[in-house]
């Protein structure tokens, strides 16, 4: 259905959230591929405030911000495909949303900081922060999964999507700095979850492999380095 369009690129983990949600719902949509470094007319028109991807366009009306988009998809198509994304229980919904805030506010920025770290010391510090966050998420996983496969229990749910979008970013970061971040020894539960999430039928279809993510991460690193140098001049 050309009724649903998504502006973005799978290389953005935030866009990937929307793609995984659409894939879980088995919805057809048109991907309006954005090129890195350029912003299309459509993007600027659809998201004038942030000028960022993803933007979902449904019935010609744009929806911006990945968390807003995923909840919207779940509410408009509650029973499609694999079914509900937000957990049925209000308390679990609040925990999934809480951890999503944490990931966006604290954890992913720590992964970006790792990418930006220039000295060995800065890298080591950044690695510790990323791992500390992963340990918290590992603990949360144990509580929320109740011994089952996903944050949503038997089914992939909201937090699986909102965190799982970073599964290959974690791998790419590990390759980038040659350090294990999500290691099986200290975080077996979360490690197992990441393996299962990547293998899920709806996720496999859309998630770029870690090699591609690593390539993109390196392009971002170069851009960050240039921006930092420009800022100094």
């Amino acid at each position, binding site marked *: 259905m050309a009724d649903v369009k998504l502006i973005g690129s799978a290389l953005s983990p935030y866009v990937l959230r929307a793609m995984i949600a659409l894939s879980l719902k088995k919805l057809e949509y048109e991907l309006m591929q954005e090129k890195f470094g350029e912003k299309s007319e459509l993007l600027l028109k659809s998201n004038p405030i942030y000028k960022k991807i993803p933007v979902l366009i*449904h019935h010609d*009306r744009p*929806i911006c911000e990945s968390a*807003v988009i995923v909840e919207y998809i779940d509410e408009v198509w509650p029973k499609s495909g694999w079914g509900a994304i937000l957990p049925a229980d209000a308390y679990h919904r*609040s925990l999934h949303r*809480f951890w999503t*805030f944490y990931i966006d506010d604290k954890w992913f920025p720590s992964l970006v900081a790792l990418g930006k770290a220039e000295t060995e010391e800065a890298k080591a510090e950044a690695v510790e922060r990323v791992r500390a966050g992963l340990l918290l998420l590992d603990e949360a996983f144990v509580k929320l999964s109740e011994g089952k496969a996903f944050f949503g229990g038997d089914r992939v749910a909201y937090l699986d999507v909102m965190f799982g979008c970073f599964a290959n970013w974690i791998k790419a970061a590990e390759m980038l700095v040659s350090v294990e971040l999500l290691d099986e020894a200290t975080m077996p539960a979360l490690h197992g979850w990441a393996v299962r999430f990547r293998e899920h039928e709806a996720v496999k279809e859309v998630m770029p492999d870690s090699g591609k993510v690593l390539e993109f991460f390196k392009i971002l690193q170069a851009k960050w380095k240039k921006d930092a140098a420009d800022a100094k001049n």
Partner: protein
Amino acid sequence: MANAKEVRLYGMTRSGYCLMVHHALRLKGVPYDYVEEDLKNKSQELLRLNPVHKKVPVLVVDGRPVAESLVILQYIDELWGSLAPRLLPEDPHRRAKVRFWADFVYQKVVPLTYVIPKAEGDSKAAAVAEFRAQLVVMEGGVREELWVDGAGPFINGDAPGLLDLLAGSCHTGIKFLEGVAGVQLLDKEETPLLCSVMEALLQLDVVKETTDFLQQHVHNDR
């Protein structure tokens, strides 16, 4: 109808984030206990209930804690969905717009409230101008995407919803900041809709009740 739940709110009198939660609970008529936290000397309870951020507000319902103000407001709306007012609209598109603009406040407006008190001279003026500009953006966006003429006085309709409560807390925070920093941040001519929403909220009994209730907990130390 759900059985009566044990509800306890951990907060701080001057926190706008906490104020919204008081308002939401009182609007729905949900009875709750309140624990005032001294943020310079946080209780063991708070640290146990919100170990990740160690911040208020935390809402505990039947022993289970929820943190993050926007998460708490949605939780309240979902737990007490049968109690008016509904804080979020029924229509998914409108819900998405409410969520977007709530997030906008946290992304674009709130950070400046930390910059302004510490800034001086030109950078202060720039921060103030930026703050007012962002409110104008929000005014325009809300007017275009959510406001229905004649359906007010609130963005949510005749009763306040999530964005209205957020606007109310912003008003409290803004007035405090204006006093502390000696600047003007709100202007009825720049943002008439947001100002009228804030005014309508201030008139509500539950808002006045909350103000009176919190008076008992106000600390005298700065």
